[in-house]
Structures are given as structure tokens and as C-alpha cells.
């Protein structure tokens, strides 16, 4: 008991130190929440170690994929979750970036270095994002969602209509990632390197988006969701900020799309542009807890882990039935998301612990 309070106290002081220094940037938290985050972070960073100790090396692939989807789910969240303008076509942004990489490699020069194709691809995602945002953001509520949904369908169809360029149903090969940083060769042929290539951008994006979400911009986005008229009445140009939310969203979506392209090695309509993909990232964000950035990360890991490792017991198609049913149950019975619930539970526990001292 006494040792418990002591660790709580020591952790508590760590948490206080964190709150003093970074709390205003990323949000305050108590000892338990900090412990939970730190444990998750260590678990992720040390995944190659513990998976090989436990003899489940296959998990690394799943975690790499989950990291990419976490980027996409966060990208969706900063736009849709925060502003309340729910986009049903976000796969177009990531898919656009993936296709940009594939098209550059296939039609321009197969030897283009990653450090050239990747920024261009992210810019393509940004361009598509703005092309969708500027006309559609004049619409509200369901109209906005409908247009983004239809935009997704159209992009999907266009890959078939222009199959001479895009490779149609089979798509295009992008091969594996290979580049040198400071004399170190990085290649996705190696599962451990691949894992870190996917994980590190995810962590960087998570920190960046958390910072943005706590900044004034994030506050205004939330205010737009809660009461757009009030924000407009305060003299703030809401359209400008909604477009900003798309910009903030397009960049991670682009990065995620490029990483996903290198993860699979091929870019095709079904893995990148099908409406199911847009819904998947929404499902991850909702399962984790919308408008929280870290919730979607948790949701992505949970959904991908279930999909890739657990639900195969229901068969290759049955796993989708089971997964979507689970998502439906969360939607109906835990609207605010599982990880938000967990987070608040930790918050309550930590708070009462603090009172005892």
C-alpha cells in the first residue's frame, strides 16, 4: 500500500513536471494517464524486441500497418472530428498520394529518389484536399458528407476509366522503399526497419497534431463544430479555418498514403480508393474516440490488430463481417469511443488517488 502511494507520488511528480513544461502545449494529464502513455510508447518502440522474445514476429507487420492507418485516422480526425464536417471520402487524399508516387515511378522515371517523390505526392494530396474542400465546404451537414462520399466514388471509378495510365484493377508496382540517410541505408525489405519507417512518422505526426489541436487553431475548429454561427459572429472567418483543417489533414493523409504504397508495394483501387477504406479510417477514429488525436491511434491499432490477427478465425470474408459488426456495436453503445472511455477512467482514478495524498 505504502509502496503504491510512493510510486504514485513519484509518478505524480513526474506528471506535474510534464504538466508544467508541456501541459499547455499537449494537454495536461495525471500520473496514471502519463504512465499509460509512456507504457504504450515503450511498448511500440520496443516491439521488435518483445515480439521476437514472444515468438510472434508476425505482429511487426501488423503494427507497421496499424501505424500507417493511425496516421490516416488522425488525419481524418483533425479535419472531420474537430470541425464536425464529416468527410466520407478521405481515402481519396491518401489514395491520391499513393497514386502520385506510383505514377511518378512508372511514367516519369523508376529511379526517382524517395526524397523527391514523397514530397510531390504529399503536395498532390494537398491539392486534391483543397480541390474537394473549396467547393464542398460551402455545404453543411449531410450535404458535405454526401459530396465527399461521391467524390470518393468518382476517383475510384476514374482509376478504371483511365486504366491505361493507372493500371486499372491491378494497379501499379511501386516496389520497396530504399534510401540513404547519413550513410545509413534504409529499406523496407527488412521487417524491423520497415516497422520503424512506419512507426516514427506516426509518432511525429501524433505529436504535431496534438500540438495543433491544443493551439488556437484547434480551439477554433472545435468551436466551429459546436456552434459555427457563434464563431462567425465573433468575426472569425470560419471558411478559412475549415480550409485550414483540410490542409492540416491532407499532409498526414499524403504521408500515410505514400507509406501505405510502400507497405503493400503496389497501388491499386481496392486497397487505396474503395469507399470501404474511407469508412475504415472513420471507424478507427470513432472506435478510439473522435476529436482526440490519440483516440484514433488507439482505434487504428485495435481495428488493425483485430482484422489481421484475431478475426481470421471467422474466415477471410467472415472477419470483415465480424469487424464491421464490432464497429457497429461501438457506434451504438459507446459513441464516444473506447479509448476516450479508458482515458477518462484513468483520469478519474488518478484524480481520486491524488486527493488521498
Amino acid at each position, binding site marked *: 500500500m505504502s509502496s503504491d502511494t510512493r510510486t504514485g507520488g513519484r509518478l505524480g511528480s513526474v506528471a506535474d513536471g510534464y504538466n508544467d513544461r508541456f501541459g499547455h502545449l499537449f494537454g495536461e494529464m495525471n500520473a496514471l494517464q502519463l504512465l499509460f502513455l509512456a507504457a504504450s510508447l515503450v511498448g511500440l518502440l520496443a516491439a521488435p524486441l518483445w515480439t521476437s522474445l514472444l515468438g510472434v514476429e508476425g505482429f511487426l507487420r501488423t503494427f507497421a500497418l496499424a501505424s500507417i492507418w493511425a496516421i490516416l485516422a488522425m488525419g481524418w480526425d483533425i479535419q472531420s472530428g474537430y470541425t464536425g464536417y464529416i468527410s466520407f471520402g478521405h481515402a481519396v487524399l491518401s489514395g491520391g498520394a499513393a497514386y502520385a508516387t506510383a505514377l511518378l515511378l512508372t511514367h516519369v522515371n523508376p529511379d526517382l529518389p524517395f526524397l523527391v517523390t514523397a514530397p510531390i505526392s504529399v503536395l498532390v494530396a494537398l491539392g486534391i484536399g483543397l480541390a474537394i474542400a473549396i467547393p464542398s465546404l460551402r455545404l453543411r451537414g449531410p450535404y458535405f458528407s454526401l459530396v465527399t462520399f461521391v467524390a470518393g466514388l468518382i476517383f475510384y471509378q476514374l482509376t478504371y476509366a483511365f486504366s491505361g495510365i493507372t493500371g486499372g484493377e491491378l494497379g501499379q508496382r511501386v516496389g520497396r522503399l530504399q534510401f540513404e540517410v547519413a550513410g545509413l541505408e534504409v529499406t523496407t525489405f527488412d521487417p524491423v526497419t520497415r516497422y520503424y519507417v512506419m512507426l516514427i512518422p506516426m509518432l511525429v505526426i501524433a505529436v504535431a497534431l496534438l500540438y495543433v489541436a491544443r493551439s488556437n487553431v484547434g480551439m477554433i475548429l472545435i468551436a466551429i463544430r459546436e456552434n459555427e454561427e457563434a464563431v462567425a459572429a465573433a468575426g472569425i472567418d470560419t471558411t478559412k479555418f475549415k480550409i485550414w483543417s483540410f490542409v492540416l489533414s491532407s499532409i498526414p493523409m499524403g504521408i500515410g498514403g505514400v507509406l501505405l504504397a510502400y507497405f503493400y508495394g503496389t497501388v491499386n483501387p481496392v486497397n487505396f480508393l474503395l469507399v470501404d477504406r474511407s469508412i475504415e479510417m472513420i471507424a478507427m477514429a470513432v472506435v478510439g474516440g473522435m476529436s482526440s488525436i490519440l483516440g484514433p491511434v488507439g482505434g487504428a491499432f485495435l481495428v488493425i490488430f483485430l482484422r489481421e490477427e484475431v478475426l481470421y478465425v471467422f474466415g477471410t470474408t467472415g472477419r*470483415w463481417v465480424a469487424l464491421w459488426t464490432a464497429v457497429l456495436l461501438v457506434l451504438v453503445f459507446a459513441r464516444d469511443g473506447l479509448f476516450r472511455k479508458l482515458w477518462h477512467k484513468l483520469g478519474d482514478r488518478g484524480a481520486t488517488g491524488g486527493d488521498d495524498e
Partner: protein
Amino acid sequence: MLGSAISILVTGAMISAVYALIAIGFTMIFGVGGVLNLAHGALIMLGAYGYLVVTSSSTVEFLALPPVVGLVVAIAVGAIGSYGLYRGLVEYIEDNPVITFLATLVVALILAELAVVGFSASPRSLVNLAPGSYHHEGFGIRVTYIELVAFVASWVSIGLLWYYVTRTDEGRSILATSMSERGAQLTGVDLPSVKARTWVIAGGLAGLAGVFIGTLQQTSPVMWLDPLALAFIIVVIGGIGSIKGSIIAAYLIGYLETLTVELLGSGFRGTFSLIVLVIVLLVMPQGLFGREWVHE
């Protein structure tokens, strides 16, 4: 030239009639409950597979009923599915539009995956309700009888629906609810039953449309997507909640698609519809007849 113009005129009319069937149910549910039912396409799929099961012995050995019975079954399956969806799910979550949106879409995905489990991912062909076709040498027109049946069925349903919502008390309560939920409640309209009835009607129309879509295009687990997108486009152009608007918009889109396919090829089927959609949204976001029901 004249021949191909008339041919486009006729083909366009046939497909537009089916589109109208798809869109009306979707718009009614939005008009009455304010719910966008993204499982609408899945109800269409349900109708098509329901028809497949009872009319073709390829799924159940001893079950090969006449196509007309299949048509009735398709309508019933769509209606029951739609009613079940409302009573079992939507009723509890319709206060939150985002959750309703997502949940109905997830239901559609579940049904699509179940269709893969039950009937495999490859397309199936339906027993043709009315085989054969009419061919006019002079104009170079070819119309299949199934298209004609679809056209007639569409207009018969529209006529019945019109009679129902303007001439019967039950139907008029639907119309009243779509105009003003509060007003309808104050005049003694039983809101839950009106909503449930609307879902049943929309589901029945979807099931009926499923047979025609399934025969004319394809019956496969991905068949829910295109009709859903069409329903969106049509309903937004016609004005959400307006039956008249969706019928007119259905013909607009039907002809636009027929022209596109004729001139550019089928890959661009939906592209121009989207462009029209964007223009309509920018110029008149309420659609062609967005306020029609309020004024009537």
C-alpha cells in the same frame, strides 16, 4: 443520327425510370425522419438476392418459383429489411446524424460481406423476368422487355405512391410529417408509426428496384454502391425530401449518363453526374425542388 437520337431517348427513359425508383425511397426517409439511410443501396441488393434465391434453383435446389412471385418476394424482403433496420437500429440513434450516417453505412458493409459469404463475390445472373426484346428497324431502336417492365413498374409505383400520400389519411400523415414534424404531432399524427411506414415503403421500392438493377446491370456484393451514389446525386439535385424533384432529377441523370456512355464510354458513367451535382450544389444548394413539400 435521328435513329441514334431516338435510341438515346428511349434507353434513357428506361434507365431513368429505375433511377427514380431508387431515389424516391431515399428521399422519403430523409424528408420524414431527417435520416440519410446509407443502407439504401444494401436494401436494393437484398431485393436482388431475394429474387435470386426464390427464382433460381442455383441457390436452393428445390426452389424455382415463377419470376412474378420473385418480384413480390423482392419487394417484401426489401420492405422487411428496411423495417427491421429502422426498428432494430436507426430508431435508437437517429438523434445523432453522424452516428446514424456511420451506422447505416456499416450495416451496408456488413450486408455486402454477408452477400460474399452467402453467394460468393462473383456476379450472379438473375432469371429474366421478361426475356426477349423489341426491335424497330426503321429507327434502329432495341428495347428489351425487361426494360419496358421496369419502366411500367416504376410509373405504377409512382402513381400508387402519389395516390397514397395525397388521397389517404395514412399517406397524408407521412406528407404532413415531412412538412413539419411538430405540426404533425400536434394534429395527432403517430410519429413512430409514420416513420416506420415510410421505411417500409422505401424498402419495398428499393427491393423492387433491386430486381431491375440486378437484371440490367449485375447482381453482386458490390451492387449496393452505385445505386446509393445515384440516389445521393439525384436526391441532392432534386432537392432532399422532394418526391417530384427526385423523379425529375432521376430523368436528368438517367439521360446524362446515357449520353455519356454513348459518347465517351462506360468508364465515365458517373463523372458528369458529379460535375452536375457540384454545379447544382454551388448554384442552388437546396436543389430543384428543395422546398416543394412545405408549400404544397
